[in-house]
């Protein structure tokens, strides 16, 4: 469990993000502590995915601060310095996408080994051995030499999780990772995520699956219209919400 006295792994302060004249994030304050499993829920267009993507700077922010592990993520730097800074940051933050984004011209194994080898963190042999262990862990040891085109959606997503884990990140970001899956394939991906949660991985999960959030998350954040409306333990936010906006959202979902 997270220790609230310790410095949070992620600290977000007064974060704002505009797309042109559209305000997507209107001032977010949020902490993610080490070992915490945080679920971000809320209606479409509430800014959940955008918020997630600002943490590894796939999305630049308009104003505010994001701190990760003691460093300011969105520090004002020259182009070159920023590139270096972001590459170092992103090695420590794994991300899994809604549409898998596996590299179709590489096998499952090559998808997992690419980054660690390219970045010189592991030799080819080490990376291969490690990737096989990770693929085994997500239940795909026998699919190492398959190209993504020959994998099911659930299998692709599990390879994507293994790919992110190969960098040994301090935290994982999950962006609606089961939304693009056939219903019968959701379970296998959820099980993999639960397994990670049990291993104390710090996880930030954008999801539409309230049941999964209730089962897995240690903390639930409800967002609407670019703001955090309510947050707390899953039993409280999902079963006994304080805010009317949260209640309306949860009722709609039933």
């Amino acid at each position: 469990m997270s220790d609230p006295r310790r410095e949070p792994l992620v600290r977000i302060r007064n974060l704002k993000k505009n797309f042109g004249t559209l305000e997507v994030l209107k001032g977010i304050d949020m902490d993610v502590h080490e070992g915490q499993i945080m679920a971000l829920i809320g209606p479409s267009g509430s800014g959940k995915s955008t918020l997630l993507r600002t943490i590894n700077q796939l999305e630049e922010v308009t104003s505010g601060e994001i701190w990760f592990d003691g460093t300011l993520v969105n520090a004002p730097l020259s182009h070159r310095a920023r590139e270096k800074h972001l590459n170092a940051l992103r090695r420590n933050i794994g991300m899994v996408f809604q549409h898998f984004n596996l590299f179709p011209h590489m096998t499952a194994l090559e998808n997992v080994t690419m980054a660690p080898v390219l970045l010189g963190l592991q030799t080819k042999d080490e990376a291969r051995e490690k990737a096989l262990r990770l693929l085994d862990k997500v239940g795909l040891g026998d699919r190492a030499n398959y190209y993504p085109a020959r994998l099911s959606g659930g299998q692709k997503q599990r390879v994507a999780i293994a790919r992110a884990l190969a960098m040994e990140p301090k935290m994982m970001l999950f962006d609606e990772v089961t939304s693009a899956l056939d219903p019968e394939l959701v379970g296998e991906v959820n099980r993999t995520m639960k397994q990670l949660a049990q291993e104390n991985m710090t996880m930030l999960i954008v999801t539409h699956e309230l049941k999964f959030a209730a089962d897995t998350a240690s903390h639930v954040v409800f967002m609407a219209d670019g703001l955090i409306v309510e947050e707390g333990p899953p039993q409280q936010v999902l079963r006994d919400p304080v805010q009317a906006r949260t209640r309306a959202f949860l009722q709609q979902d039933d």
Partner: protein
Amino acid sequence: MNLDFSVVPRMTDLLLWGVAWTIVLSVLSMVLSLILGAVFAVVRVSSIRLLRWPVQGLSWVFMGTPLLLQLYVVYFGLAELGLNLNAFSAGVIALSLHFAVYNADIIRAGIQAIDSGQYQAARSLGVSHVQAMRKVVVPQAMANVAPALGNMMIALLKESALVSAIGVMELTLSAQRAISQTFRPFEFYLAAAALYYLLNLVLQQALRLIERRTTLTR
């Protein structure tokens, strides 16, 4: 008109010499034009204007002027400036640059057609922009535009005949030599044409093989 192809075999050595040099000249230029084309394409889609503009300018020049003049300029013009290239190197440079700008346009379209999620996934793992382009985006783009690039390679093989104009002893020039020795222009021009055609048949088969391999893996 009486055609007498019996003169052709007497010049076999000369023609095969020409074929060999056409192959060397073309294959070298193909490889360079593809690598340069990929680099130009990546620069053209980059956000760095200081890099983008010179490449844009280069591509206008090489698309807007005849290859024959480009060969003359690289060979004779650079010599005036004190840069003495042999005819073969000048030929390779002009051919490579000329086709690189066309390849770049094709590859650029291929890059823009790749889902941005591919680039983001690579970057999210901490690899640099250049690494993400080189390992993830460009290989997929190249595979998608392989048929169009293949056509450019066939064109390159044929256009390599122009390099005869600066004295490289490739197939066209060796046919001309054979003609000046035998005074049988028609026979040797037809023989040379047949040899170009055969070379392109082989090239087409090779391209088909590459295309099949790159699409199989997807």
